[in-house]
């Protein structure tokens, strides 16, 4: 039986997909300037863009890898990478089975998912106090 990957569908990734990359870079540049100007955050959902494999790869190549590569373990795994352009982050969210939930590019100083929430810190404080008390 012919499996899916053997079916001879040749997707022609002309360059329509690649041609999106300069436009996306200009959007990210505007967003970066906007963040510097008034702190406005910006987010792109890659699933909503008509990017083929080639275009996606070209975008990833253009943005490169920055100094931070973090893994967040909630509802499965999430990877938060800073690109070579400080303030532009590439986020990939996966479920418990490793399936892709969504992929985003955020323009911000720190993606919200990395920030420790005050409510969570308060809950941690209570848990730590209980632990300390139990050890006395």
């Amino acid at each position, binding site marked *: 039986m012919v499996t899916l990957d053997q079916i*001879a*569908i040749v997707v022609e990734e002309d360059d329509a997909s690649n041609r999106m990359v300069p436009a996306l870079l200009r959007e990210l540049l505007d967003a970066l300037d906007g963040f510097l100007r008034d702190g406005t955050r910006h987010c792109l959902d890659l699933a*909503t863009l008509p990017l083929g494999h080639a275009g996606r790869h070209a975008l990833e190549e253009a943005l490169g890898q920055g100094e931070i590569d973090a893994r967040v373990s*909630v509802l499965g795994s999430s990877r938060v990478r800073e690109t070579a352009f400080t303030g532009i982050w590439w986020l990939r969210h996966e479920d418990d089975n490793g*399936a892709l*939930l969504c992929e*985003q590019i955020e323009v911000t100083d720190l993606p*919200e998912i990395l920030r420790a*929430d005050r409510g*969570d810190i308060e809950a941690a404080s209570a848990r730590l106090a209980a632990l300390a008390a139990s050890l006395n």
Partner: protein
Amino acid sequence: MSEPSPAVDEPTVLESFQQNGFSRRTFLKFCAATASLLALPAAEAAVLAENLATKPRPTVIYLSFQECTGCLESLTRSFSPTLEHLIFNVVSLAYNDTLQAAAGESAEAAREDAMRKAWGKYVLVVDGAIPRPLDGAYCVVGGKSALASLQHVAEGAAAVIAVGTCAAFGGLPLANPNPTGAVAVQDLVRDKPVINLSGCPPIPEIITGSVVYLLSFGVPELDEHRRPKVFFGNTIHDRCYRRPFYDKGLFATSFDDEGARNGWCLYELGCKGPTTYNSCATMKWNGGTSFPIESGHGCLGCSEPGFWDRGDFYHPLSTGRWGSGMGEKLAVAAVAGAVLGGAAAVAGRQRQKARNDASTQHPDHPEAK
């Protein structure tokens, strides 16, 4: 509409996450995945998170009538958002006779209690068609007819979600000869917003995503059959990975011929993808594993009104009663494709676009009568 919300003293969605031991990070990831599922623009994705962080969980009452429980089976297999997150964190599921632990009179009393506390504000989810003759005597649960239950519970609802083709359009119970006189929810509930999530069953993420959208933004934009356009805005054919073969006029003509083995278009084998609006080709099933056409079988058209009565599942659209003459047009495009190749692809797309503008209202649907 009144905003769907809150049971008395219900925590917000974010508080509910935190009370169940999840961090804000979990909540943010849940929101990001849901916003992506709903194809929300970036700005609205942030609003989704903000709204869910501040809104109390709405009370949800889920009633099952003439149905096979396949829709609920589907719902329990939602990957994102998962059903567990939905019922533990996003909504307060006050009544579902299959999922709840309570049974008998105590279950019915709990439903009445939940309705009283959130009167005018709860969300009613209905699964299954409703028989109308003889005061609804063909479907009775707990001594009360489906007809009476629906009318009673819908009276206090802020919005009604009809899950599955039976609830949305009558489905199998309404199919010829419709022995019980079954009708759809929208035929009985006239004074509340009704959202139809059709499919036999619907894609699970469409059910959970629509509930989250309703909570966060209210009733989504709907098509002429009251289905959310975000999920039912395109045909299966529009997004099918076998579409290039249709455009080239390459068709499987039996389930074991060369075309079938090569993964060619299933139009000749009765695929109803060209006239079926749903997200199977993009969202797929079982966590994005595949969808029927990817498994080698044509689309049955299960999310369209009256799909059981539209002729043979295994004959091409051109020989059935599917749509207003669209089958013939598609057949012409298919034959032309075999002869003209690329030129037919353009013609096919133009016809498809024309079809998109045309209604596919089925004559058997009660609203069409």
